[in-house]
């Protein structure tokens, strides 16, 4: 099948059974790839009530039709499963060289089920697939694991590995690849750990065939030329996403001190310029990417020198300003610790900031922390806390289940400032002054993540206090942006360098031979969005509007300082945003897709299933 490797590799770790299933035309054309494949398999094969950390959960590792193909940045792999953080469908994507290698090995996706009897890693080299015991890697950091496997297998193997946090099933454990790239969100690392799966190693020698090579070369060469001629390319090559920090601070969006503030007085010390001048060692790109936003950096702390890719914006926001660290080198060191332990830097940073706020308010004390002075600004405290989380010891035990669970354990009103939605910690944009971004976080299908609808620029463009009309933009973005995760391609070239979407629309028929227009693809993206929502509705009788709420802090505390000092969003505003959003989506006011909407999207069987359960009308 054009644009695809043509096979799904299914590995049952309990039985050791390995099977190759042909990729069906139906799956490829309706769910495209990447996250679409993830949503399909997780909805169809992970029934309601499945323990996300039990053998019944399935981990889907999927590339897309653009992955590994001659075009800019076909580098994205999606990892999907039922999330241990949210109990809902979850996914996370990762750049680097994994997606391309998976396709060259002959697979569009891996579906990993069951649980290995002993610590193991999955070895894939073209047709050779083996579940190999690896007791000696268990307990090792994720970067060290990657090195050990590359030393053994060779540099051409691409590795995705978990650290101790994944082994111990911390619900925000990451899957790491290429020395510091993370599939950080939703606890995909914990799912791997629960399956005794330490790593995946892939190498492939096959060709990815496309429908129209000449047509593809024409469009791709135009895209490469347009990118190369863009004057903004240079700053992206120099600073990558680290440049966003200064901008975010200037517009009052930079999470600071556990999201109490959105302006960090010390942001200059965390800027992209400082990253470049103080700690940068090498530019580092994902597969076939001219932007090279990866910044390989060096950090020294207490006599130790470490190297890691990062910190990019999200890490700088959640670990840096949100924990009030003092320099980009401190952030880089903390970044390294999270990567090595295998913790999402977003949720990890948020968990530490939450702990620091609880400590400063006296909700927890030195007795609880085992002597750690958990104050904002302390890198030592940060390091001690993340070690406890990864090991699930002391305060690390409740924290390892996420800030929502920790707030339940510690009480004292702390749930008001446990900054999460659906159990997933909020990523790097404080949104009291950005209603569409706020709505984007509330309604993001996996929990409080920005990537589905990065709508903050829309708020700035049309007016930050306006409520009406914002839902439509959020929905448009929620269909457009995840398409990139389905296609297996990075979206930054479009988002940040303004590469027109029209190019991607032209690539699709050249790669796949299918004649879908971009609008057809958006319809498919809407179907996937609704399928993910349906997963939640099937999962829990009470799933709905209550799951789409931000923490109380955001509608009870006005912004204390910075450029947006005094601004706030009200409870009523939030309800208006949600009503408008649900109406436009064809969902009821409790946030459930109606049968009519599901049927319109070609999900008749899903509608019937949910109706039989009495969940939708």
């Amino acid at each position, binding site marked *: 099948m054009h644009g695809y490797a043509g096979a799904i590799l299914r590995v049952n770790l309990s039985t050791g059974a390995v099977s190759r299933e042909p990729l069906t035309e139906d799956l490829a054309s309706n769910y495209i790839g990447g996250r679409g494949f993830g949503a399909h398999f997780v909805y169809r094969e992970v029934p309601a009530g499945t323990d996300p950390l039990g053998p019944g959960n399935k981990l889907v590792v999927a590339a897309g039709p653009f992955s590994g193909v001659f075009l800019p940045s076909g580098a994205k792999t999606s990892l999907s499963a039922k999330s241990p953080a949210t109990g809902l469908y979850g996914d996370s994507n990762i750049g680097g060289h994994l997606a391309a290698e998976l396709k060259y090995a002959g697979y569009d996706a891996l579906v990993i089920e069951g649980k290995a009897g002993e610590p193991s890693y999955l070895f894939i080299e073209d047709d050779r697939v083996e579940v190999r015991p690896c007791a000696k890697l268990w307990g090792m950091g994720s970067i060290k694991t990657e090195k050990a496997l*590359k030393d053994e297998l060779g540099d051409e193997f691409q590795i995705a590995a978990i650290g101790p946090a994944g082994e111990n099933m911390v619900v925000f454990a990451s899957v790491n690849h290429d020395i510091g790239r993370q599939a950080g969100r939703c606890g995909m690392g914990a799912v791997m750990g629960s399956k005794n799966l330490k790593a995946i190693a892939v190498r492939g*020698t096959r*060709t990815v065939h496309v429908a129209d090579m000449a047509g593809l070369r024409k469009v791709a060469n135009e895209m490469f030329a347009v990118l190369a001629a863009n004057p903004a390319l240079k700053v992206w090559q120099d600073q990558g996403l680290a440049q966003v920090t200064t901008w975010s601070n200037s517009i009052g969006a930079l999470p600071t001190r556990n999201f109490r503030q959105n302006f960090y007085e010390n942001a200059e010390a965390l800027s992209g310029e400082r990253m470049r001048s103080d700690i940068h060692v090498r530019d580092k790109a994902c597969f076939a990417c001219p932007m090279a936003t990866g910044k390989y950096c060096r950090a020294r702390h207490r006599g130790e020198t470490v190297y890691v890719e990062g910190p990019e914006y999200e890490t700088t926001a959640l670990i840096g300003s949100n924990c009030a660290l003092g320099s980009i080198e401190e952030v880089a060191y903390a970044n390294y610790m999270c990567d090595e332990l295998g913790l999402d830097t977003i949720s990890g940073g948020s968990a530490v900031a939450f702990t620091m706020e609880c400590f400063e308010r006296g909700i927890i004390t030195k007795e609880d922390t085992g002597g750690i002075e958990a104050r904002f600004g302390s890198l030592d405290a940060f390091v001690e806390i993340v070690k406890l989380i990864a090991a699930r010891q002391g305060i690390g035990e409740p924290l390892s289940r996420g800030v929502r669970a920790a707030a339940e354990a510690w009480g004292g009103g702390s749930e008001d400032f446990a900054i999460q939605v659906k159990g997933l910690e909020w990523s790097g944009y404080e949104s009291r002054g950005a209603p569409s971004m706020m709505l984007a976080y509330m309604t993001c299908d996996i929990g409080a993540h920005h990537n589905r609808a990065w709508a903050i620029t829309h708020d700035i463009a049309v007016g930050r206090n306006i409520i009406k009309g914002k839902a439509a933009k959020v929905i448009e973005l929620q269909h457009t942006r995840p398409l990139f995760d389905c296609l297996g391609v990075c979206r930054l070239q479009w988002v940040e360098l303004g590469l027109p979407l029209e190019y991607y629309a032209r690539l699709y028929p050249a790669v796949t031979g299918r004649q879908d227009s971009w609008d057809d693809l958006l319809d498919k993206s809407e179907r996937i969005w609704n399928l993910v929502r349906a997963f939640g509705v099937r999962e829990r009788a009470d799933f709905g509007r209550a799951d789409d709420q931000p923490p109380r802090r955001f509608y009870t505390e006005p912004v204390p300082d910075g450029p947006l000092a005094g601004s706030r969003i009200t409870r009523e505003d939030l309800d208006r945003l949600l009503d408008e959003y649900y109406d436009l989506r064809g969902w009821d006011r409790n946030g459930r897709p109606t049968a009519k909407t599901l049927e319109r999207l070609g999900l008749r069987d899903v509608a019937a299933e949910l109706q039989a359960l009495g969940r939708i009308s």
Partner: protein
Amino acid sequence: MKLDLDRCTGCKLCQLVCSVVSFGENNPKKAGIRVVSRLFTDARYDVVVCDQCGLCIESCPVGAISMEDGVVRIDADTCTNCGICVETCPNGAMFVHPDVDHPIKCIACGECARLCPRGVLDALAGVGKVAS
């Protein structure tokens, strides 16, 4: 030949486009150039590619390798895929692929140099005739 390796980002676009121009395929393992990560040891990338030194020409027992306009080429029809030149090359710049019946090497077409986002390979484009 001096490549500007300090600027290499390891994107492998050169390897990918090489397979596209040489075989009409998306397959970086079918390329005459290799990007190697040395991040763990030296915090940098390396690019392995032929410098047209000509040492392999003599090593070939069937005379399948020759130099034309400064570019060393393998005649695929004559080549028996014995692998001797692969062993001989001091740069490790002859590559084997299970589906290709001769070693694969750079023919200095310049396409990778044209596309490299960092100008790492400009020196390559100066070798032989550069394809338009």
